[in-house]
């Protein structure tokens, strides 16, 4: 936002309160637990963050248009289960679809994306044409998708994946640079371009700013929204595909509740739930804050019950600090 010209340390610290807070934590942990700053742990973080960022990117677009998407987590789960089912070894014990052809791994990804895109389309139509509030529309979709996932998997956990699936999800370039991290970067760059250098992006912000005004200025609000929810759904599909491969198995519970974490991460990163405001860099920072926090708390060996409390507090404090920037001083 509008910074005063002259450098003001206090202000800078407060304006970047979250980052500062976190850096302190990181520094502390790095000192007490040297392995925390090891290259491997940094790569771990990148790997853990990848699916989260991909989900958060999808959600952020919804948030920017004053919307939201509560079906994210369940779609991740459905996609994880589906890709898992389609990519089980031919001889995997208890193959769910025993005589399903051995499709190319990318084809499977596309199938999952296509399926989720359909749900995204429904979300979009329900929200824009039936003008159902996004919160409720996607909440309903959350239940529907969950039900479908259960029907598809029959609540049986999926495992015994093909080597190529494991390769594209757990592989490392030159044995060091995780593919997942590469996917993260690609996704972020594409979204950054769309948000800043396309009409779709500008329209998205305009709708968030004032839907009526956008409409009157010739923006096709309905179409824009539908595209946003479809894209988001595709991102969830990708995330689910990666998450399942990363964990070497999937169940209907996978991804449960991720939507809330994603929304929280976006907000921490400065995406306004009141629409119109939000940057890709922010989304990434938001997720990073979350993942760093989780990993730091684990390294500190904090009692798991207290970890919930700690996370909750951090969310609130982080955002309270961040909001300060956007409130016009009175």
């Amino acid at each position, binding site marked *: 936002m*509008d910074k*005063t010209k002259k450098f003001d340390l206090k202000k800078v610290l407060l304006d970047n309160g979250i980052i500062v807070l976190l850096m302190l934590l990181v520094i502390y942990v790095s000192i007490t637990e040297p392995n925390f700053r090891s290259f491997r742990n940094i790569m771990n973080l990148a790997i853990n963050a990848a699916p989260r960022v991909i989900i958060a990117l999808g959600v952020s677009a919804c948030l920017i248009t004053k919307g939201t998407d509560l079906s994210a987590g369940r779609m991740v789960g459905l996609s994880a289960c589906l890709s898992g089912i389609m990519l089980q070894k031919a001889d995997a014990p208890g193959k769910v679809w025993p005589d399903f052809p051995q499709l190319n791994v990318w084809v499977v990804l596309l199938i999952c994306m296509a399926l989720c895109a359909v749900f995204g389309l429904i979300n979009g139509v329900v929200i824009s044409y039936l003008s159902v509030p996004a919160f409720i529309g996607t909440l309903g979709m959350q239940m529907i998708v969950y039900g479908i996932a259960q029907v598809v998997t029959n609540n049986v956990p999926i495992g015994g994946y093909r080597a190529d699936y494991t390769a594209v999800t757990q592989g490392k370039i030159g044995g060091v640079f995780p593919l997942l991290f590469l996917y993260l970067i690609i996704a972020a760059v594409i979204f950054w371009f769309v948000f800043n250098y396309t*009409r779709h992006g*500008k329209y998205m912000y305009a709708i968030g700013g004032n839907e009526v005004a*956008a*409409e*009157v200025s*010739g923006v*096709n609000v309905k179409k824009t929204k539908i595209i946003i929810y479809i894209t988001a759904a595709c991102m969830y599909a990708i995330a689910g595909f990666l998450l399942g491969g990363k964990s070497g198995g999937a169940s209907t519970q996978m991804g449960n509740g991720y939507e809330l974490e994603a929304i929280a991460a976006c907000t921490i990163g400065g995406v306004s739930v009141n629409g119109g405001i939000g940057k890709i860099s922010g989304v990434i920072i938001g997720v990073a804050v979350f993942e760093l926090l989780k990993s730091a708390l684990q390294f500190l060996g904090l009692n798991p019950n207290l970890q919930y409390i700690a996370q909750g507090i951090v969310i609130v404090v982080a955002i309270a600090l961040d909001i300060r920037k956007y409130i016009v001083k*009175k």
Partner: protein
Amino acid sequence: MAEYRLEMRGVSKSFPGVKALDKINLKVRPGTVHALMGENGAGKSTLMKCLFGIYHMDEGEVYVDGKKVDINNPDEALHNGLAMVHQELQPVPERTIAENMYLGRFPTKKVGPLQVIDHKTMNEEAKKWLDNVKMPFDPKKRLGNLSISQMQSVEIAKAVSQEAKLIILDEPTSSLTDNEVEALFRIVRDLRDRGVSFVFISHKMAELRKISDDITIMRDGTYVGTWEMKNISDDDIVKNMVGRELTNIYPPLDNTPGDVLLEVDNFTSIHSNSFKNCSFKLRRGEILGFGGLVGAQRTELMEAIFGIRHTTSGEVKLNGKPLNIKSPKDAIRNGIGMITEDRRGSGILGCLSIADNISIASLDHYVEGGVKLNNGKIEKLVQDNIGKLSIKTPSSKTLIQSLSGGNQQKVIISRWLANNPDVLIMDEPTRGIDVGAKYEIYQIMISLAKQGKGIIMISSEMPELIGVSNRIMVMCNGKITGEVSGDEATQENIMYFATQF
């Protein structure tokens, strides 16, 4: 009794990047109407918001009846006997008119141990004050059903009903028509005679002449001076405001209408109480004024042409070829643009930058290779417009919501200049715009006309209507009741048609 009802000394206030107020003084005598004038962005509203506790002033002192007061929020302001009509309407559309009027001070009665809202008293009181401002509405009606001007009147009724010692009116008449203004003035005079003081902000010289005793002028957040109204001429006022001579209010209307550009035929709304069988023609290079009383449905008619409202019948032809307009997008694609009446509701993109607000309607012109936008070119476009309309802002990245009312209006106009349509519909285009800026806007309209564009201007200001229209259509209660050519137009013959119920 103190010498001054209100005294503000050396008030300063700055926002990030803007020094909105710099050591402003304001002295209001008891039982007078004190005019506050200045260009858009001069700081009038900010000054009043500081007084009312909406903003906290960086420095300065406030005295009410000689007593130093320290007001931190509107509640305290009200308790100090201040009331205010805000420049930006503050309606709660979903609630009743009465509830809007008595918000923050609902009358209650004791029922046993309980404090219960006294709906009866509230509605009766509200009714009384509404009649007073010539707004004979049922106070139990949902406020949202009213037009902007009607809401404006409700706000006024609310302010005067607060029995305050000092009432601040920030451009109260900006969306009122003459008879509503008359009603307002009657109340103001009447209260003034009972010792109530007023601070009256307006860009309409004539009004201020009629109503105010003293005048304080501001320029760019600085204090210029205070005069008794009778001791200062209009020219001096303008000179002090804009800091330069301004010979006349309307530029020469030297455009020449050509052949028919837009043909509107037999438009009828889906709502029985709205516009019916409206037909008219707009010529190339013509400025066509639309006059009428509030509720004449001019806005509705234009919004219907623009694809915002639904019709049962009606056809639009552009250059003789019929258009099929279902949404504003269609209209814009066919070269029709519209500046809507409700700036905040359907104009500004609040939390977006001025740049985004200006470019949003014309992004199609800046696409390269099918997808990528040339943000460089867009920024240039924005800078041009900020210059051309002298929009008062620290930068093109500033959020539009932080601009002064008038400057926001200028941004919206830029949006359509950038889009460059063949037909531009302007609904109350100079609402809340200062004299200097008005002149600029008229010039723009005329130069557009000279480029062969057609311009439709809805205006509730008679002089403006007469001053810058080549031709005037007059509406009354949904029907087009008459047509007057620019040169023979007079207040009288427009009024005549405007009242053909």
